[in-house]
């Protein structure tokens, strides 16, 4: 395998694995920036993966090749609907955020596998999707020597979209009024309320955005990696996304970078076999590496992770 082909393989598998994590981690960032802790990202991804799979399987004949892309939006919308549960529980009914998030993680696989069995003759998994997101070669950019082949040939288009969204999210949170207000209710809801900012409204916005993006991330996972839905379609990616968010210090750019790093780490066991000096290393090290590195990096470089000040604190408005 030539060097550029190897680079291309590493980059494209990294991007494919990173894409679902980036979307979901960005979702988590919005929620926690507004002050609602979100350990339920995993559950939101499950709902997104399930609904998008069912959509592609049912409507492929109607929408043809566009089905896959529409299905991502379908997954996002169902993720958003599912996240209302978390929003109502934490914002209106003063539930502990971690308990409520855990409920999402318990409920999503239960409900989705239940529905899968109802829809697909008692089977615990959906049939395989005919056409996934596949790979994409950029028209002009791929002609650039070396870089063109490594970065822009047979790669994941959705991952580039995810990175772009990371930048847009940063701009949204740090350079717009709505973003400033969203962050303010996560830092000091009392002060924000005094200034006339509707705390509940912005917290709803944060949670629903996380549901939308988490569902989108789950859908990307199903449409690009597993190509069907079963109980094991989403197995820890939501938690990885949560880790990426914390790793990225609750900043969209940081979360995107961390998710890319996790993607690289996850691609290692797959491409490791092709890299000469890594071929003899036991696969356990590749598999465990992302998790070990995360811990080490957190300990050495970050110390105390700095969450938004009112993250996880219920806001009870004085009447």
């Amino acid at each position, binding site marked *: 395998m030539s060097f550029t082909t190897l680079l291309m393989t590493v980059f494209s598998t990294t991007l494919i694995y990173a894409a679902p994590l980036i979307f979901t981690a960005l979702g988590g960032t919005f929620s926690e920036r507004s002050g609602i802790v979100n*350990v339920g990202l995993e559950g939101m991804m499950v709902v997104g993966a399930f609904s998008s799979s069912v959509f592609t399987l049912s409507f492929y004949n109607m929408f043809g090749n566009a089905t896959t892309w529409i299905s991502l939006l379908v997954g996002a919308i169902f993720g958003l609907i599912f996240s209302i549960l978390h929003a109502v529980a934490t914002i209106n*009914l003063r539930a502990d955020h971690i308990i409520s998030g855990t409920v999402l*993680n318990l*409920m999503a696989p239960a409900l989705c596998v239940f529905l899968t*069995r109802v829809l697909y003759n*008692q089977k615990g998994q959906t049939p395989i999707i005919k056409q996934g997101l596949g790979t994409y070669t950029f028209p002009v950019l791929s002609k650039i020597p070396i870089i063109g082949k490594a970065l822009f040939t047979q790669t994941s288009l959705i991952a580039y979209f995810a990175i772009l969204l990371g930048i847009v999210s940063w701009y949204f949170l740090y350079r717009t009024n709505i973003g400033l207000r969203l962050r303010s209710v996560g830092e000091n809801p009392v002060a924000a309320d005094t200034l006339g900012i509707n705390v509940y409204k912005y917290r709803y916005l944060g949670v629903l955005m996380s549901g939308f993006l988490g569902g989108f991330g789950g859908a990307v996972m199903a449409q690009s990696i597993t190509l069907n839905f079963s109980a094991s379609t989403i197995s820890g990616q939501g938690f990885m996304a949560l880790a990426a968010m914390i790793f990225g210090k609750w900043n969209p750019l940081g979360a995107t970078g961390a998710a890319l790093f996790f993607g690289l780490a996850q691609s290692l066991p797959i491409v490791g076999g092709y890299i000469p000096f890594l071929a003899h290393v036991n696969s356990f090290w590749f598999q465990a590496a992302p998790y070990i590195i995360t*811990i080490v990096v*957190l300990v050495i470089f970050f110390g105390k992770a700095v969450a938004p000040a009112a993250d996880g604190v219920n806001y009870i408005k004085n009447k």
Partner: protein
Amino acid sequence: MFNKTKLSAIAVPVMSVIAGFIVGAIVMLIFGYNPIVNYGSLFSGAFSGAYSIGETLRDMTPLILTALGFAVSSKAGFFNIGGSGQYLLGWFAAILVTLKFHTLPGLVLIIFAILAAALAGGLWSGIAGYLRAYFGTSEVITTIMLNYIAFYFVNFAVKNWLTAKGEDSSANIPSKASLRTPFLENLTQNSTFHWGFFIALLVAVIVWFYFNKTNSGFELRSVGTNEAASRYAGMSVKKTIIVAMFVSGILAGLAGGLDGLGNYQNISVSNSLPQVGYDGMAVALLAANNPLGILLAALLFAALSIGGLSISVFSTTPTEIVSIVTASIIFFVGIKYAFEYLINKFLTKKELIKKLNSAKGDKKA
């Protein structure tokens, strides 16, 4: 008469359970399944006859211990999501010890294996405790990461150290090291019920005693309630964090060890983390971390999962309906504010009526 907080401490879980079952019934009705028939087969699947009861109690065993583990760390204010990984390492350690030291006499071997399991779990979560205490690293993240490392490690170790080439499961442990005995098997019509259950009960009592009657347990609860005040009172917060996480892991490791020696009798390569760690969290949440409440909550969840198996035997209803009920129950526990609000309203209304009545009585007199 009725203390409001005490009343809500009992009423909230009871109302949550009822509400959870109602949600399950509604879901079944929507999809055209019969809730009464299904809940009937769930109940008989869990409790009719010695065999079912034996299976239910066996399923309770790891739930009690993982829930206690979660409770210990929660009381100290930490969120140990690592129950699954600690359980898995405990299971692995117990099987490893029994297979490697199979020449030892039975009882010694069992004690040795159980201690190894507890220690494996304890050291694993102790890492998270240490990092939290000295580096301020979020234990939520480290325990999640440690879960996956444990998962890949155990798969690797089982594949390379404990199985013959090309196989996915280790040999069975010698029967002298098993926690199942002919006596218990006869008693429960050959169910998988084993002595581990009694160990779990004993541990629950010990943990209750630890929380309520020892200095260390008091410090733990104190740090969980108010870290700054505890430091001011001269407690070592760092030490308490590490102890809490260590004990928490010991309990989850113990759960894995007992399940390994009693239930599974071997260990296999698996494709996901064991669910029991997360279920233990649910049990502890329902019981509000009260050790004795955990026994009841574990009984309920074990009955649901064992009884749930018969739902799909006697009807076409998917077994997952049971997990929907479980998740709903925890949801209602989570929004206990809504229940407390209702109870409060109800009680104040009652008091008002009482007052009005007595006022009327006064007038008459």
